[in-house]
């Protein structure tokens, strides 16, 4: 019998939770400040060597959650376990966790070397060992020649790297990063993103990153936890979060989405039909959905999942085609975003790749166009 070629083993432990032990286990954690819940009943498992991003707007509770992992805040209820040990009541200075602060929090009265060595000195390591480790870290972040400088003599990007080196110095099991790239300008941010991922993969340390920047989260993360008003709205890999949002909040928060309301007219195991007055046509969804006939629900679709044409395209199920007038065009170079006013008055956005150079035949303002999409292009949302 010929052997089948072996497929690469899936290295994503969260896809097989039954056989993998989570490294960080947050169980039913709630944090109240006075009467306000900053974090409400959050449960989350994070696996070894993950680069997990907590993504959310300001006040979503993401930073509070991070501070609880570091030990700066104590949960009002719930437990936090790291590598099988209950850390809920362990003070920050006794946790095998280090943090890189948003402001970097470099000690201004200490040199770069002293900053990096600070945590090692607290562990009473021998001097030689500390010096070796500091040199190693300076090399890692490419700051070999800057050891004697004070933080205020460094550029923003250099400070960010010192902060990273200092947080890595004690070989933490878990590194927490609070908006690690927030203070850098756009260009530097893009370079640093990849550097960060490289270092994380090289060291195999588990990273938990807090960010409000969805692009950053998409680039860095193995998985993303989207937070909203103190709760986790969705956990998933970047593609899941973007392509298969579980709620209107997530669909709107990540990227841009057209959202319409509709009523279920046919609910079959292999397809669903939704009538939408806003859209001016029926939506045919090519898979089963957990819903009931006549239920009102929402349907979201990304602008790039739709196509524009001057002629009416084929519509096999007499659905998934609507028509409108082009109102606005935003030319962004690689793509153009068309705002189309439908007959109901609803405006939708459709993006088209500019694959033809200086296309003279491109659809233009005030043209009547047909908008169409595939059976599985949109997401049906019940919440």
């Amino acid at each position: 019998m010929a052997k089948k070629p072996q497929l690469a083993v899936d290295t994503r432990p969260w896809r097989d939770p039954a056989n993998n032990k989570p490294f960080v286990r947050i169980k039913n954690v709630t944090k109240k400040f006075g009467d306000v819940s900053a974090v409400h009943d959050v449960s989350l498992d994070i696996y070894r060597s993950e680069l997990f991003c907590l993504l959310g707007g300001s006040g979503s509770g993401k930073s509070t959650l991070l501070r609880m992992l570091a030990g700066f805040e104590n949960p009002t209820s719930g437990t936090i376990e790291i590598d099988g040990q209950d850390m809920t009541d362990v003070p920050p200075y006794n946790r095998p966790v280090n943090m890189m602060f948003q402001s970097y929090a470099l000690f201004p009265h200490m040199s770069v070397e002293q900053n990096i060595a600070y945590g090692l000195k607290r562990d009473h390591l021998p001097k030689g060992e500390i010096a070796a480790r500091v040199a190693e870290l300076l090399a890692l972040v490419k700051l070999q020649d800057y050891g004697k400088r004070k933080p205020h003599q460094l550029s923003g990007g250099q400070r960010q790297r010192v902060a990273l080196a200092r947080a890595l110095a004690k070989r933490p099991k878990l590194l927490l990063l609070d908006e690690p790239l927030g203070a850098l300008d756009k260009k530097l941010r893009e370079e640093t993103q990849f550097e960060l991922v490289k270092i994380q993969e090289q060291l195999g340390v588990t990273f938990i990153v807090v960010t409000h920047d969805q692009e950053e989260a998409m680039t860095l993360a193995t998985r993303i936890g989207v937070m909203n008003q103190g709760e986790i709205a969705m956990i998933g890999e970047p593609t899941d979060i973007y392509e298969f949002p579980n709620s209107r909040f997530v669909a709107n928060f990540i990227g841009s989405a057209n959202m319409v309301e509709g009523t279920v007219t046919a609910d079959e195991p292999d397809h669903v039909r939704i009538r939408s007055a806003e859209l001016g046509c029926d939506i045919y969804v090519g898979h089963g959905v957990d819903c009931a006939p006549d239920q009102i629900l929402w349907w979201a679709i990304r602008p790039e999942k739709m196509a524009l044409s001057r002629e009416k395209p084929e519509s096999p199920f007499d659905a998934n085609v609507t028509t409108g007038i082009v109102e606005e065009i935003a030319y962004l170079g690689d793509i153009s975003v068309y705002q189309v006013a439908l007959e109901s008055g609803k405006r939708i956005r459709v993006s088209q790749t500019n694959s033809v150079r200086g296309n003279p035949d491109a659809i233009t303002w005030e043209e009547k166009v047909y908008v169409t999409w595939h059976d599985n292009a949109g997401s049906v949302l019940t919440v």
Partner: protein
Amino acid sequence: MFSRGWFLPIAAALGFSFLYAPIVSLVIFSFNESSLVTVWSGFSTKWYGALFNDPQLLGAAWLSLQIAALSATIALVLGTLAAVALVRFRRFRGRTLFSGMVSAPLVMPDVITGLSLLLLFVAMEGLLGWPQGRGMLTIVIAHATFCTAYVCVVVQSRLSDFDRSLEEAAMDLGASPVRTFFDVTLPIIAPALISGWLLGFTLSLDDLVIASFVSGPGSSTLPMVIFSKVRLGVSPDVNALATIIVGIVALGVLAATLIQLRSKPKKARA
């Protein structure tokens, strides 16, 4: 013209000469030979000599220096604790009363502070037998009380632009709260502590009114001795004394400014 013209520089120049002319003239006349303070009759340092041979004045100066050092030190501890409480403890019961008590001595007229403390000391002596009589101890207590307010203001302003995450970073790297205080908090607020102490020291050294109320027989401070001399008219040795004090203070303020400038590099936040 108002904003760009000559008005502002001239006004400022006149203002500064108003501030400094009397002091400059006093310094000049301290080297005057004549005992008539305002008629120049020749250069002499004899008033400086007289100063150092006046045991009453020297004794008072020594007492004042001791009082100033002690009360500034007490005020440093109390004022720093008060500032930490006001900046770090956002809400606690009696906060308004506490912050009022801390800052009211800043503007309380000296005569009220002096009289009230004296009456307290007398009442306490009657009830508890302590403090026995009045003298250095009671002056130190009185000075420490109003200096606390000044130290608190200075330290408070430094602490309120202190980045809390610096302390969190130290704890995150394994330092206990006490260790964090000594490794991170203290070095960073040290310049404010030094200026607070110096401020308390000079204020104590300067005080006449409060000390007059709460001092006892045999414990006259330097300002009290100067006042009794000056009240009787002009005395040239006071000119000499004033010159020495102005010199010391000018050096001190200069040093303090340099320390401040050095500890506060252009980018204060790391």
